[in-house]
């Protein structure tokens, strides 16, 4: 995955080319400008100034555009102003991370941009823009910077509050542009989701990715026509829930993974499964069977709710293998990657409330010998207290903004 540009959607109201001066010194280097004559002067000046320019609705070569959601804690629409909650009472977070990873898995040589405009009823702050930038960039994508109308009007008028928000937004974009190597890092995962992600399988498989992310599970997205023997390496489990049984080669690959100690979570559509039932004291919606050193969990017929699949798979795999655990984080998510040389890991931590936490703890599985924390508005490393555990490291974060990157040196 690459991220060669930092794109921005040119606000409709900005018709004076002099507004381009705002972008001087920022990481924004690709402008999506309307095709109308009223922006012709802007387009000309932008090209002269060295910006890449494209038109709305037409992805530049080498870019996949994902239609995304405005990221953050989903708020109630009917009065109250409270956070909308999921079925367990936890805040419901909208994030585009899973969609970026899916686009990257399906188009590995492309950059991924996220087209998500501020929601009409959203309460937009500088922190909201930080989340919008980080929610895409942490996963290797790039948000097409899209300003809400009040901010674009105030910025053009040179208002100080708007300029402060702009500086925070562009600092975040600059932070990720300065870490150009990160998008090429390899995602760490506990569970693999195997599917073609299209046709009859599109809704379930994509909703499963979305809900696994909400459940805090770290996934490897495995398009089933590209699976090699190495695709399942280091995973604890594979989920196969497509409507049709796997092709013989894929079946063989997955069953070999199970025999070596992995877990397969699948539907009755998988077809024939090993005939060695084992006791299942936990979830009654799955029957368990043994195969070699591993297990196969087959959902009972009619079990087609991706929310249940996502959350129950987390428990079946066990929190013992959580890659990341948070305390005092509020609504949070994470994405962990390893440098291609295997010497360094980066854990991207996202906190979706209107401000970051003031005493969060994060536990990251693995063995590390040093930890450094970075925030998007302060490129210098922030000192953090951390303590090694037997197979993890626990990091105590000071008050932080909504995005933190942890660089971990692997032992």
């Amino acid at each position, binding site marked *: 995955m690459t991220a060669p540009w930092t794109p921005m959607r040119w606000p409709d109201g900005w018709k004076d080319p002099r507004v381009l001066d705002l972008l001087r010194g920022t990481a924004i280097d690709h402008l999506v400008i309307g095709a109308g004559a009223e922006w012709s002067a802007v387009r000309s000046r932008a090209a002269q100034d060295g910006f890449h320019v494209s038109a709305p609705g037409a992805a530049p070569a080498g870019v996949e555009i994902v239609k995304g959601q405005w990221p953050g804690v989903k708020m109630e629409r009917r009065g109250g102003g409270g956070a909308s909650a999921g*079925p*367990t*009472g936890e805040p419901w977070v909208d994030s585009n991370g899973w969609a970026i990873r899916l686009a990257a898995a399906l188009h590995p040589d492309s950059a991924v941009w996220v087209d998500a405009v501020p929601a009409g009823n959203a309460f937009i702050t500088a922190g909201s823009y930080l989340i919008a930038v980080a929610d895409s960039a942490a996963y290797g994508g790039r948000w097409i910077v899209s300003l809400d109308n009040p901010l674009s009007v105030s910025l053009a008028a040179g208002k100080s509050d708007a300029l402060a928000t702009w500086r925070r937004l562009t600092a975040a974009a600059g932070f990720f542009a300065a870490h150009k190597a990160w998008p090429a890092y390899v995602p760490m995962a506990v569970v693999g989701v195997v599917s073609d992600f299209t046709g009859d399988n599109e809704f379930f498989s994509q909703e499963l990715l979305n809900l696994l992310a909400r459940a805090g599970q770290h996934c490897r997205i495995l398009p089933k026509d590209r699976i090699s023997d190495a695709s399942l390496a280091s995973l604890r489990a594979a989920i196969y829930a497509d409507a049709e049984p796997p092709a013989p080669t894929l079946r063989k690959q997955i069953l070999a993974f199970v025999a070596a100690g992995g877990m397969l979570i699948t539907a009755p559509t998988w077809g024939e499964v090993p005939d060695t039932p084992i006791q299942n*004291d*936990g979830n009654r919606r799955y029957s368990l069977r043994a195969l070699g050193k591993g297990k196969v969990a087959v959902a009972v017929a009619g079990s087609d709710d991706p929310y249940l699949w996502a959350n129950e798979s987390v*428990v079946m795999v*066990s*929190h*013992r293998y*959580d890659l990341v*655990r*948070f*305390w*005092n*984080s*509020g609504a949070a998510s994470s994405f962990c990657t390893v440098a291609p040389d295997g010497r360094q890991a980066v854990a991207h931590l996202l906190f979706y*409330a209107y*401000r970051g*936490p*003031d*005493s*969060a*703890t994060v*536990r990251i599985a693995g063995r590390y010998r040093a930890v450094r924390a970075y925030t998007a508005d302060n490129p210098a490393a922030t000192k953090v*207290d951390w303590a090694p555990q037997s197979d993890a490291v*626990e990091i*105590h974060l000071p008050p932080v903004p909504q995005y933190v990157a942890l660089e971990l040196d692997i032992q």
Partner: protein
Amino acid sequence: MRYTRREWLWKTGTALSGASLGRAAGAPTAPVAVARCKTYNPAELLPTMRKMFDQLGGLGRLVKGKTVAIKINLSGSPTYRLGYLPLEDTHYTHPHVIAAAAHLMAEAGARRIRLLESPWSTAEPVEEYLLRADCEPRDILGAAPNVEFENTNYLGTGKKYSRLTVPFGGYVFPAFDLNHSYADCDVFVSLAKMKEHATAGVTLSMKNCFGLTPCTIYGTGAGIDEPSETPKGGRSLIHAGDRQPSKSAPPEKDPRSPRQDTWRVPRTVVDLVAARPVQLAIVEGIKTMTGGEGPWVGEDLKAVAPGVMVAGLNPVSTDAVAMAVMGFDPMADRGTPPFERCDSTLKLAEEAGIGTRDLKRIEVVGASIAEVKFDFAAIRRQRRAAPPPPFGMRG
């Protein structure tokens, strides 16, 4: 001390009956063991607990050949800490204490040891809940043979809920539908943490039993007619009385009774302790917190290390001694710390005939109360004399 008219009518009605006073005078008593224990190091913890149980007459006569159910206290979400501290150092029963209790029960001949809790808003196994809290369930499961967990916040491994009736008729509920584990045991143990409580003043061995109620029936998301399949949310039904339990379970005795949590929670706890008697009450106060039952309480909360354990065969008497260790008067009534705003669970339990809270009638063995006293009451006075902490997101 302010009462609403409805609360006043209820209070005077109860007092005028005179029956409760009679029951209080004859409420049973049992010895309570008190010990200094400064650390969770098994080398200190295990002999301390063994000695306490011996002082109570020995565990063998209580548990030999029996199925023992132990209600532990894992209150609130496992993702919520007081600052950076592990949950077991502030508001969860410490895993080493659970493991030591299980080990000693097995040593005394218990046939089966079942560790029960109704974790916050989930039907996931207790083992998974502990892992999310960064506790290692294998350390507990490995402490003795035949140790197992069950999540009692829903139907669990049972085929149906068990109905447990309140012998004295109940203050709020005449009976409860609970997870089978509370009926399918020979001995019931409450293994609690020594804490103050925002709604009930203190949470000790009796208040720990509030968590017996499955949220599939008594929770915010409980089914209207039948229990829901999985628990959702907390127990606002009991706190606020904003709805009735699922119709399959016994309803409240009087839906016109007060709806205040400070009235309802202490009474419901007593109903539960009467319906599911506690044969052994253990209060762990080695490390804990002041100011409330968990980090979500809006007080100036502090982690503390009282270094004390209390255990007894009667939960009311055990809690009375634990309150005294905390610097509170167990004879306190509404209006007096720690019951400034709520009714005393101990007084209500005493009036229901469950046990005495009168220290003059309780034999304290082991360390004296004065030796181990850790003055929660003084810290409470200082805290409440100071300006309130700034409101904000703690985490």
